[in-house]
């Protein structure tokens, strides 16, 4: 039995059942969850067996699919995050408008993504890519936001530009190579200029999907206006398809030597093209973080945070070394985990309270304890603080950048990750801590399925914090497969320690040390016999003479980092989004002018014709 056909069959059955039972909630959801988990179990079961062995499947010598460790890595992410998102949607989408078609299009998106990840030729890749874009566009339309059309349309149009860019480069490749297969690419038939153009058009296609600046303008709207459980999938798994595409096209198909042919820099030991990618990533990481710090809407903050985090992944892709690619793949997993968890937490909060702004919330820790724990673990991972999983990415990435002697870029990236600490703190402070509003006294905990969906990634993050080497063992497997000079520049992973030429870090010892110290500190703290502890209310605080009531709680949450905003005000007003908005306004004005001529009224056209005839007559007669 072919593994690929089985997976395709299971997922198609799930998709079909989402159409057949689209009105019967329990049956539909259960069959989708069953299909996704069976497929996930299937992939995981054969993941270990076929690592290294490539299982191929082709149809009429046109469509090639391959079941290997590299694709499975991404498929596990897609199916895992998809499963969690569907699980969370059970309660979140319940009795909301658009519930019925939400699942159909969600399954369509997943199908397209799994197809494109397993495909090994450009044609099936592109079909999967377009199914994914179409499916996600339709899911955004199922939300209840009023302005969803505007943002969905913006997402779709910008995605189309990327798709055309991709399609164009695929045809150029086919024209020269006469094959759509990734492995058939032959750089010797291209000139240097053609290769450069090809690299640029391919990158534009994928950078748009990954929302890298300056192609990020769709991201904040599309992420925040989708149904939020889908956004968990959108940001957690789908945005990585851009990274996957770059990975497979640049290093799987075109190859490092062909990229070096377009211009090689001795000092940084990399090509100018890759160097540009690194700087795009750095700028995205920094500006995305800055935008996230200054957002007042929770969903917009998380959207910009996703933009920034994708920047880190692009840096790793741009570096192209083993260490850099390992960092990227590691970050794909950690970002998938914490962003899924965070978006589901936010979905739960908005589901229960209906509020979306930071200053409308606060003090929910006692109402939603599980959500608080999930958020705490997620933000520690997000900020990259040891001993949880996020630090491994940071360490690998910085070491990779230092190894390539990109010190300025390293400094800015590190600053961006410190900035992540700022908005991450706001996420926990303004939602769960501080003073609770009177109207939120009776807010119930998150629904059960959402609690499960937010806790599972949190457990994964804790596990990765102590055993990052287990994941790196897998990523090393397929980085070896795509033939990049391994051990020469790489990170050496012993049982628990990471070493490379610049530094070292022992995740397990460090994590254990923190745990041991925590236990000792707790014992030390409790040595003294303690009196009974009374929990006091939120009004029992020192207020310096300010009179606080439940009706008007004293909360510091609006314009939280106003200092930064005030300091950077002159620079902040320039943004790509504003630029695009302005262009679109000018375009609308132009169209308005054209509309005055082409009114659609027959009599106006008659007048135009008459005036034209008279002018012509006068011209010829005179």
């Amino acid at each position, binding site marked *: 039995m072919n593994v690929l056909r089985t997976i395709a069959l299971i997922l198609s059955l799930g998709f079909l059942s989402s159409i057949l039972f689209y009105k019967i909630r329990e049956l539909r959801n259960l069959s989708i969850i069953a299909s996704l988990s069976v497929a996930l179990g299937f992939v995981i079961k054969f993941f270990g067996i076929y690592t290294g062995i490539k299982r191929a499947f082709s149809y009429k010598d046109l469509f090639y699919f391959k079941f290997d460790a590299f694709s499975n890595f991404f498929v596990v992410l897609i199916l895992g995050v998809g499963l969690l998102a569907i699980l969370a949607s059970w309660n979140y989408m319940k009795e909301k408008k658009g519930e019925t078609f939400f699942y159909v299009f969600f399954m369509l998106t997943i199908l397209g993504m799994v197809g494109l990840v397993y495909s090994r030729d450009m044609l099936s890749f592109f079909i999967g890519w377009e199914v994914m874009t179409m499916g996600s566009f339709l899911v955004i339309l199922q939300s209840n936001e009023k302005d969803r059309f505007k943002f969905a349309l913006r997402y779709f149009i910008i995605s189309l530009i990327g798709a055309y860019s991709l399609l164009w480069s695929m045809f150029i490749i086919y024209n020269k190579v006469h094959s759509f297969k990734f492995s058939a690419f032959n750089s010797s038939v291209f000139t240097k200029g053609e290769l450069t153009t090809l690299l640029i058009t391919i990158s534009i296609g994928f950078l748009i999907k990954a929302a890298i600046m300056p192609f990020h303008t769709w991201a904040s709207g599309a992420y925040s206006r989708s149904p939020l459980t889908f956004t968990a999938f959108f940001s957690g798994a789908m945005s990585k398809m851009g990274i996957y595409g770059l990975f497979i096209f640049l290093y799987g198909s075109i190859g490092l030597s062909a990229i070096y042919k377009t211009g090689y820099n001795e000092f940084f030991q990399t090509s100018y093209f890759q160097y540009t990618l690194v700087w795009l990533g750095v700028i995205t990481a920094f500006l995305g973080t800055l935008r996230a710090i200054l957002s007042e809407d929770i969903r917009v903050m998380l959207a910009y945070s996703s933009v920034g985090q994708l920047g880190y992944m692009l840096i790793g892709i741009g570096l192209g070394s083993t260490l850099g690619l390992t960092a990227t793949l590691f970050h794909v997993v950690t970002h998938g985990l914490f962003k899924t968890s965070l978006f589901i937490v936010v979905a739960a909060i908005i589901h229960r309270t209906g509020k979306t702004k930071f200053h409308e919330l606060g*003090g929910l820790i*006692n109402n939603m304890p599980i959500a608080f724990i999930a958020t705490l673990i997620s933000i520690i991972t997000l*900020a990259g*603080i*040891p001993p949880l999983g996020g*630090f491994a990415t*940071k*360490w690998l990435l*910085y*070491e990779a950048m*230092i190894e390539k*002697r990109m*010190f*300025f870029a390293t*400094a800015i990236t590190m*600053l961006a990750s*410190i*900035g992540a600490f*700022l908005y991450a*703190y706001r996420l926990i*402070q303004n939602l769960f*801590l*501080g*003073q609770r509003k009177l109207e939120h006294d009776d807010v119930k905990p998150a629904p059960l399925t959402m609690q499960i969906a937010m806790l599972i990634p949190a457990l994964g993050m804790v596990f990765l914090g102590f055993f990052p080497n287990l994941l790196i063992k897998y990523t090393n497997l397929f980085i070896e497969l795509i033939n990049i000079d391994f051990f020469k520049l790489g990170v050496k992973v012993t049982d628990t*320690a990471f070493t490379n*030429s*610049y*530094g*070292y*870090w*022992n995740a397990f010892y*460090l994590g254990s*040390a*923190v745990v041991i*110290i*925590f236990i000792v*500190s*707790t014992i*030390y*703290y409790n040595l*003294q016999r*303690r*009196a009974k*502890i*009374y*929990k*006091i209310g*939120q009004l*029992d*605080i*020192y*207020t*310096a003479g300010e009179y606080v009531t439940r009706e008007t709680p004293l*909360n*510091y*949450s609006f314009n939280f*980092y106003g*200092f*930064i905003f005030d*300091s950077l005000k002159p620079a902040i007003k320039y943004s790509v989004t504003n630029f695009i908005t302005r262009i679109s306004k000018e375009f609308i004005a132009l169209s308005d002018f054209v509309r005055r001529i082409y009114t659609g009224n027959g009599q106006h056209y008659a007048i135009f014709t008459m005036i034209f005839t008279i002018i012509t007559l006068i011209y010829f007669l005179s």
Partner: protein
Amino acid sequence: MSTDSMYRLLVTIAVILGSIIYGFFINSLARRITARVQNRMGPPLKQPFIDVIKLYSKRTFVTHGIMQTLGPILMLTGIISTLILIPYGKGYLTLYSSNGDLITILYIMTFGQLAMALAVGQAGNPYGTIGVARGLTRMFGYELPLILALISLIALNHSADVNVIIANQHGGIANWNAFRHPFVGITALLAMLGMMSYQPFDNASAPAEVASGPITEFGGKFMAIMMTTNAMFVVAKLALLVDLFFGGASNIFILALKIFLLYLYPLFVGLVFPRFAMEDTFLFFWKWPTLIGFIGLAIAIF
């Protein structure tokens, strides 16, 4: 457990306890020096010890919630984890610094601050939260020059290992990074002003402006733990700077002396300058120290 790891553990515990005592001691000296500058007598040297013992023996019987109780403990955890990754000399005094390099130290430092910030948030006092917001903004400010200085060091030494950086400064004052690479040294010293949170950058606690900032809701045992961790953190930060820029130390007494001398610098700067406004603080770090840092990094690379 082998004798070697046993000794290492004992030395580590001794260093942790010693850093608490030494932190209080230099804090006390600083208060007396400040007092002399302001033409006062100042408190006796034993004052911080009396304070912390008194506070620790108090019974705490109110709390705003779980994070307020857990926060100080987690903070202690974070600071001790930082402390054991910094070398304080040679041999056993390198403690556990072979388990993490400079980047690890930089990141694990924030663990304690996050725990503190969470505890403050749970207490629900807006003054505390404003203090945290200010502290984080200041951190975002001074980290840029600090990172530039540290990256320059990594570039110069081809290593992120603190022990290697110390070893490369071997042989006299002229070889210390602060003097051999003056731009890097100046950047680090300017960033250090923000790190030590004395005037003119004491915006977070900002006495008489936002109550007492982050510590507003913390009394008794919480306060004792916070004072202890602050004392340790001051020693840890200064020891790291001494290791990186002032040649490290061959024995613990020289290290103590260097730490004290380095501590006087933010103290005296603080006595001269009044507090900066928050926006000025942020922009200060992103202007001159950053410019000098970029020059230093450019010299280091090329």
